[in-house]
């Protein structure tokens, strides 16, 4: 819990709800959920709800593009949409656990907001999974929330969190 300008904030107060995807999902179902939920990032959990990883839109892009194109932007200039379709078809049944990010920065829901900021700065990731005592994810902290914390400390907006619509 930290107090900014007389108001108390905990991670639980500022985190956004996580959108989950089950570990038996495929690339196609993952992509469907991302598009449907308008999210670039989903939290991957097993049957018991324990955190396994996170999957980001960029992970989908990497899974679809063959290595030889990822390593050569110049060659990719000459590829076309038909080949992209073929590549997407080839990997659409791949399990989400095969292309998700397994090393996800996490913070306990009871943790400190500054610690979350330090984790974000250190890991270079924009997303931190918020987990409970059983390592079950309960929410996500993104750059947005951490930015809002800093904005609030500088008094830019009385309560930057309620000012934003995407909470």
């Amino acid at each position, binding site marked *: 819990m930290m107090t900014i300008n007389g108001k108390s904030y905990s991670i639980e107060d500022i985190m956004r709800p996580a959108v989950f995807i089950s570990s038996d999902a495929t690339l196609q179902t993952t992509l469907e959920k991302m598009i449907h939920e308008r999210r670039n990032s989903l939290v991957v959990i097993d049957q018991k709800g324990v955190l396994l990883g996170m999957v980001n839109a960029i992970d989908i892009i990497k899974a679809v593009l063959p*290595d*030889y194109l990822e*390593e050569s932007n110049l*060659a990719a*200039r000459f590829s076309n949409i038909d*080949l992209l379709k073929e590549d997407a078809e080839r990997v659409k049944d791949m399990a989400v656990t095969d292309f998700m990010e397994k090393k996800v920065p996490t913070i306990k829901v009871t943790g400190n907001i500054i610690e979350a900021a330090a984790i974000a700065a250190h890991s270079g990731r924009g997303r931190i999974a918020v987990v409970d005592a059983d390592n079950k994810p309960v929410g996500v902290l993104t750059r947005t929330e951490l930015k809002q914390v800093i904005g609030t400390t500088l008094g830019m907006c009385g309560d930057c969190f309620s000012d934003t619509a995407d909470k």
Partner: protein
Amino acid sequence: MTIAAIISSLIFGATFALILTERVHRTVVAMAGAVLMVLAGIIFDFYHPEDALHAVDFNTLGLLFGMMILVVVLERTGVFQFLGIFTAKKTKGKPWLLMLALGSLTAILSMILDNVTTIILIVPITIIIARMLGISATPILLVEAMLSNVGGTATLVGDPPNIMIGSAADFTFNAFLLHSLPTVILVAGITFLMFKFLFRKELAKEPENINELMQMNEWDAITDAKTLKKGLAVLAGVVILFFLHGALHLEASLIALMGASLILFLVTATKDPQPIIEKTELSVLLFFASLFITVGGLEHAGVLEQLAHFITASAESNLLLTAIIILWVSAIASAIVDNIPLTVAMIPIVLYLQESGIPVDLLWWALVFGVGFGGNGSPIGSTAGIIVVTKSEQTKEPITFKKWLKYGVPATAAGLTIASVVLVIFYYTEFVNVTTPHVEASTSVIEEVIDMDAAGGH
């Protein structure tokens, strides 16, 4: 066997075995081997730091480093992708012509550039074109992998073993063009013909979407025309000087370093060249230097001399047979293990044979062909092969170990057979010196090699 011989053999053997396992990176292993060898040398008094310094062939390292800088500058301009698309369009997408054209381009580029760079640049374009045309990429990729190794064997600068052998044997750029290039053309020819037959089904397929290929604009690949012009001008100058280096009595390494120095001046005169240097493979240079030092210890402990004595009797009684044995043994070994340590270990052995008055030119060429063509005997025999196999895993028809054995091995065996015939021709036409030289002559060559090492050390 002396204690020095036993200890140095153990260190070399362990280094070599660890490199083979690929569990630890080869540069890390070789460096540890080199440091251990010098330490053991000091303790048992058979090898000292100044000997280790002399064991490093700075001509090889300088040539490699100079060419690496030139290639790093050129590859960023997109010129190689340009050439790939330009060549492919000329074939109008006909699979057999496409294989012939892209294979030949790979071979020609590998004569000047290192094979791995050539392959990394040409493979993505090849896969895109084959997929667009709806034809099999397998024969083209396989031919590219094999011809990058074959093409590299044609010139003094095409492949690290050639640079090392050329440096030790004092062979000029033109000597390679005269002896190795014609052999390479024959081997490339037989490779194409065999693939035309072995892949007759795949190559008979009518290409689709030829328009897509013809609409590709190769000029879209060029990212930096200014640097490209400078790079090509410097490369042309370097190649011309390579032709003349024998006559001018300039080491090939000096020419490559002149080119590197000039290009850095032209493209990054006011800025730190660190970003370019970072892209060169300094790890490879460290690996080579470490190997030279490790093998140098073996040499100083007298191990290689004993091995050489072993071969001397055979070489004296039947030079041609010895050459053919060296060809096939080094080829088979290169198909299984890295050909660089093999070359580094073989060089002092051949130099000992030379010292004992055997005309070794035929043996040098046997070694050049063996380590050059042998890497094609398996998918793990060369880095170019490993890269092609890995990249092909994401196409519809991955090049498996089995596929390589089915198509690559017969082509390699045919190539080695041609190389054997070439050695026979060299021998009977006396195209290379096969008569016992005067002892004075042979000693002077050794001295020259030693002088060269010493000169490089300063």
